[in-house]
C-alpha cells in the first residue's frame, strides 16, 4: 500500500477519512443533529445495526461528555469533541485490513509504527449493547475502538456489524505531532486565515464547562428527563396504522430521539453532581429501558426487519 503524505490539519484528516471510507463503499453521512455522548448513539449505528439489511455508513459525530469539561485547559480533555464512526453490516472478513488502510490514508506509515490490537470489550449500559473487539494501539497510544456488535437494545445482532470509532482529536494530535489540543491547526496553517482548534473551541469549552458544572438548572433538567421518557413511551404506544396516510408507520426514530435526549440530560445531571451513586444505576436503567423499547419498535419497521430470516 502506498504510504500517504502527512496531513497538515485536523480537517484534512477528517476529509481523508471521508474519502477513504467513501471509496470503500460506505455512505458518507452527516452528523446527527442532536446532542449525543458518542458516535454510537447516531441512529445510523444503534438502529441500523439491527435487522439483517446490509448497511455501510461512515460519519463524523460531535460528541458531548459534560463531566469531561476542563475549561479548555487540559491538553487532551474536552466536553465537546469529535468521533469518526464507521459501521458495516455484515462485518466484512477483511475489516482489520480495511481499518489499517484508513490509518495509512491519514499518514500513519505502518512500516515505521507499532500497531497492536489489544483486548477491549465494549459495553454500553445505557444502550443495552455489547460487543467484543480491541482498542487499537499505535506506539502505545489508543487510536481507535474496534468492535464486533453482539447485542444492541437487548437484540442479538444477526448479522454482526463491525464498528470502528476513531477519537479524532487524539488521533489527529498524534499524526500532527501536537501536544495541546488547542494548538492543533484546524485548517491548513498556510491558509490566508489560519485557524487553530483553540480559536474555534477554547471559548466554548470555557462556557460549556461553566454551564455543565454550575449553570444548568437541575430542576429543569430533571423535568425534561421525565418529559423525554414519557414522550418516548407515548410515541411507541401509537397504533401502527396511521389514519392520515393509511400507511403502517411506527415512530421508532422520533421515539429514539427522545431516548437520546434522556441520555444527554442524564449526563448533564451527572456533571451537575446531583445524582448519587445509587440513583445513577436507576437512571442508566431507565435510559436502557427506552433504548430497548426503541429497538423493539425499530425491528418491526421496514429498515429494521430481518427479511427472510426465521423468526
Amino acid at each position: 500500500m502506498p504510504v500517504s503524505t502527512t496531513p497538515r490539519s485536523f480537517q484534512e484528516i477528517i476529509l481523508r477519512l471521508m474519502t477513504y471510507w467513501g471509496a470503500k463503499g460506505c455512505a458518507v453521512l452527516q452528523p446527527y443533529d442532536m446532542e449525543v455522548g458518542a458516535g454510537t448513539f447516531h441512529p445510523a449505528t444503534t438502529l441500523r445495526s439491527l435487522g439483517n439489511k446490509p448497511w455501510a455508513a461512515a460519519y463524523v459525530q460531535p460528541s458531548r461528555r459534560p463531566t469531561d469539561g476542563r475549561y479548555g485547559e487540559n491538553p487532551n480533555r474536552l466536553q465537546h469533541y469529535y468521533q469518526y464512526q464507521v459501521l458495516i453490516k455484515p462485518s466484512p472478513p477483511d475489516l482489520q485490513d480495511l481499518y489499517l488502510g484508513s490509518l495509512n490514508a491519514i499518514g500513519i506509515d505502518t512500516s515505521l509504527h507499532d500497531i497492536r490490537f489489544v483486548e477491549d470489550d465494549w459495553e454500553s449500559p445505557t444502550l443495552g449493547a455489547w460487543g467484543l473487539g480491541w482498542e487499537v494501539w499505535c506506539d502505545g497510544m489508543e487510536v481507535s475502538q474496534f468492535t464486533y456488535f453482539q447485542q444492541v437494545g437487548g437484540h442479538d445482532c444477526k448479522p454482526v456489524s463491525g464498528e470502528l470509532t476513531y477519537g479524532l482529536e487524539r488521533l489527529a494530535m498524534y499524526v500532527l505531532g501536537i501536544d495541546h489540543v488547542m494548538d492543533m491547526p484546524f485548517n491548513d496553517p498556510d491558509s490566508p486565515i489560519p485557524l487553530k482548534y483553540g480559536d474555534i473551541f477554547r471559548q466554548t469549552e470555557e462556557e460549556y464547562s461553566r454551564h455543565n458544572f454550575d449553570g444548568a438548572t437541575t430542576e429543569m433538567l430533571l423535568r425534561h428527563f421525565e418529559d423525554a421518557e414519557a414522550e418516548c413511551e407515548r410515541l411507541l404506544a401509537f397504533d401502527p396504522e396511521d389514519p392520515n396516510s393509511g400507511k403502517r408507520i411506527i415512530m421508532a426514530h422520533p421515539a429514539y430521539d427522545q431516548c437520546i435526549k434522556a441520555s444527554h440530560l442524564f449526563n448533564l445531571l451527572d456533571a451537575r453532581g446531583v445524582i448519587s451513586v445509587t440513583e445513577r444505576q436507576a437512571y442508566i436503567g431507565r435510559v436502557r429501558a427506552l433504548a430497548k423499547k426503541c429497538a423493539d419498535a425499530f425491528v418491526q419497521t421496514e429498515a429494521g426487519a430481518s427479511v427472510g430470516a426465521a423468526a
Partner: protein
Amino acid sequence: MSDLLIELFSEEIPARMQAAARENLKKLVTDGLVEVGLTYESAGAFSTPRRLVLTVQGLTPESKPVREERKGPRTDAPQAALDGFLRSTGLTLEQLEKRADKKAEVFFAVIEKPGRKAAEIIAEVLERTIRTFPWPKSMRWGSGSLRWVRPLHSILCLLGDEGGAEVVPMSVDGIVAGNTTGGHRFMAPARFAVSSFDDYTAKLRRAFVMLDSAEREAHIWNDAQNQAFARGLELVPDAGLLTEVAGLVEWPVVLMGAIGAEFLHLPPEVLQTSMREHQKFFSVRNPKSGRIEGFVTVANRETADNGATILKGNLKVLSARLSDARFFWENDLRVAKAGMGDWAEGLKAVTFHNKLGSQADRIARIAALAREIAPLVGADPDQAERAAGLAKLDLRSAMVGEFPELQGTMGRYYALEAGEPEAIANAARDHYSPLGPSDAVPSEPVSVAVALADKIDTLTGFWAIDEKPTGSKDPFALRRAALGVIRLVLGNGVRVTLSSVARTGMNRCFVETGKIIAKSLESITIGEAADGAENGGNIAELLGPIREKVFRQNAAGIADEPPATLPKVADLLSFFHDRLKVFLRDQGIRHDVIDACLAMPGNDDLTLLVKRAEALQAFLGSDDGTNLLQGFKRANNILTQAEQKDGVEYSFGADPKFAETDEERALFAALDAGEAAIKPAMAQEDFAAAMAAMAKLRAPIDAFFTAVQINTENAIVRRNRLNLLHRIRALVAQVADFTKVEG
C-alpha cells in the same frame, strides 16, 4: 506412525486467554482421538496472538477394529423385546445369531466395527473441538453462526509421515481446512504452504513469527536485561506482565527508554503501576539509587529506523500518563500536608455498605477496636487509634482513585507527609495484609493492632447484618479476612480472647445498623405524612414504638447489648475454628487433634489452642502417647459402660485403702504424682510438661489393666476401681478431650 499439525488462524486472541486455550486445544483434540481408539506418543500446543497450534506426534494411522458381542432376549421372547434389541444394536433379524444358553435358546448380536482412518477421526474431533471450544467469552461475526474468540480466518490441518503430508478434508462453517498460513501481519503478510511441523515453524520464523510463547518470553526477558545492564540499570521482574506482553506480539522487539527527569521524584510504586497498567511497560531501576529511571516496551516489529519512531511515540504517551500521575501526586500532597482532613470529610459521603454506614463510620469503629486491641499486641493505644483513623484516608486521594491497587502504599507516603511517625505510616501500608495465604504478616505492633481491628470489624459487621459467606459465594472476602486474623494472631503469638473482642466489635456494628434503621424510619414517616395527613398519622402511630425501641437501643449503646450479639459471636467463632482447621491441616496438624483441643475451654485464644494442638500431636506421635491413648480409651469405655449400666456417675471417692493389688496402689501413687505435676504445668500453659507428666502414667495404667479385673464380685472394690478409672479420665481431660482423638 503419523504426525498431525493443526493451526487455527484468527484475529487477535486476548493475551490473558492464550495459556488456557493452548491447554484446552491439546486436551480436547487428544482426548477425542484416544476416545475412539487412536494412540499417540506426544503432543504440544502453542499460541501467538493470531494462532492456536497443536502438533501430535506418533499418531496411529487408523483405529483398531472392534468386535462386540451382546446377548439379547430368548428366541421365544415377545416381539416387543426383540424389536427393542434390534433397535439398540442397529441390526436386522437375519444378522442375529441364535445360541443355546443354559436352558433356552437366545439371540446374540455380533457387532463388528471396522477400524477407521485417522484422517476421518481427526476431521470429526477437530470440528467438534472448534464448535464447543470453552472460550471465556466468544462471539459471532459477519453473517455466520460459528462462535470463536474473534473471527476465525483459516484452518490448517495436515496429517503426514516421512513420505509426505496431506490436508485432512474437513470444514467448519464454510472455512475449509488447507495447508497454508500467513506470516507476521505487517512484516510478512503473504500466505504460504507448509508440509510438516518443522517446516511450519521454520517458515514462520522466516515470516517473522516466533511460535513458542516460552521462547518469546525468554527473548524479551534476556534482551531487556541486557539493554538495562548495558546502561548500568536493572530490570524489575514482573512475571505476569512478561506473559501478557509475550501474548501480544509475534515478533518481539525490545525497546528501552528513559523516564523524563520531571517525573523521577514520583514514588517508584506510582511509576511502576502507571507504566504497567496503562502501557504494559516494564520498569527499569537504578541499583544505586533504587529509583525507577527507565522503561522497557516490547514492539511487535522491526523497523527501518530501528524502532526510533515507535519509541518516540511511546515516550509521548508515557509523558502524558505521568503528567496525570504527577498532577494527582501534587494535589494529594497538598491535602496530605494539611493533615488529610479533606479526605476524612469526604469519606463521610462514601457508603461502605448501606446497612453498615459510611467509610467514615467504619473507620471510627476500627479505631475504637484498634485502641482496645493495642495493649494485647504491645502497641500504644493512642498510636493504634490514630493509625486506624488515618490508614484508609488515601481511599479519597486522586492517586488511589486512579490506581486502586496503590491503596495503603499511598497512605504511607501521605501519612509521612502529614508528619506522622513511621509506626503510624507503616500501619497505613500494612493494615490490609495478609491478603493471600502467601502474603507476609505484619509484625509492627501498631500495624498488627490496626490490621486485626480492620478484619474483625469487617467480620462482625457482615455477621451482624447476616451476610455470611455461603458455599462458593463470599463476595466480601470474609474467609480471607478470617484467615488474616488467624495468621496475624499466630504469626505474632498474640494472646487475645477473640470472642470478647468480637463481642465489642459486634455491638458497635449493631449500634450502626440501629442508627441506619432509625434514620430510614424517620424518613418514611415524613414522606408518608406529606402524602396525606391521615395515612401519615396512622403510619407514624405504628412506627412510634419501633422508633422508640431503636433509639433506646442506640442511646444505651454497648451497655445494653442486643440479644443477637452472643449467638452471632458464637457463630463467628465457629467460623474462625473452621478456617483454623483448614489452616492447621495445611500445616500438618491432624483434624482429630484440633477437635480434641477445640473442645477445651479457652478455645477462642488461638495461640493457646495451637500451642496445645502442637504439643498433643507431638505426644501422640510418641510411643508413650499412643499407649496412653489406648489406656485412656480402655478406662473410658469400661467406665462409660458401667455408668450406663448402673445409672450412676463414678466420679468421686476412690480410696487407696480399698486397693487390693500392688498395681492398683501404684496407679494411685502415679495419679497423685501426675495431678501434682499437671496442674501447675497447665497453669503455666506448659503443655510439653503436662504431656510428659501424662507419659509417666502409661506404665502404671498398662500394668493396672494387665493385673486387675475391674468388675469383681466385691461391690465396694468394683466401685473403688471405677472411681479410680474416673481419675484417669479427669486427669487426661485437663489437657485435651482425648475422646475426640482417633486410633
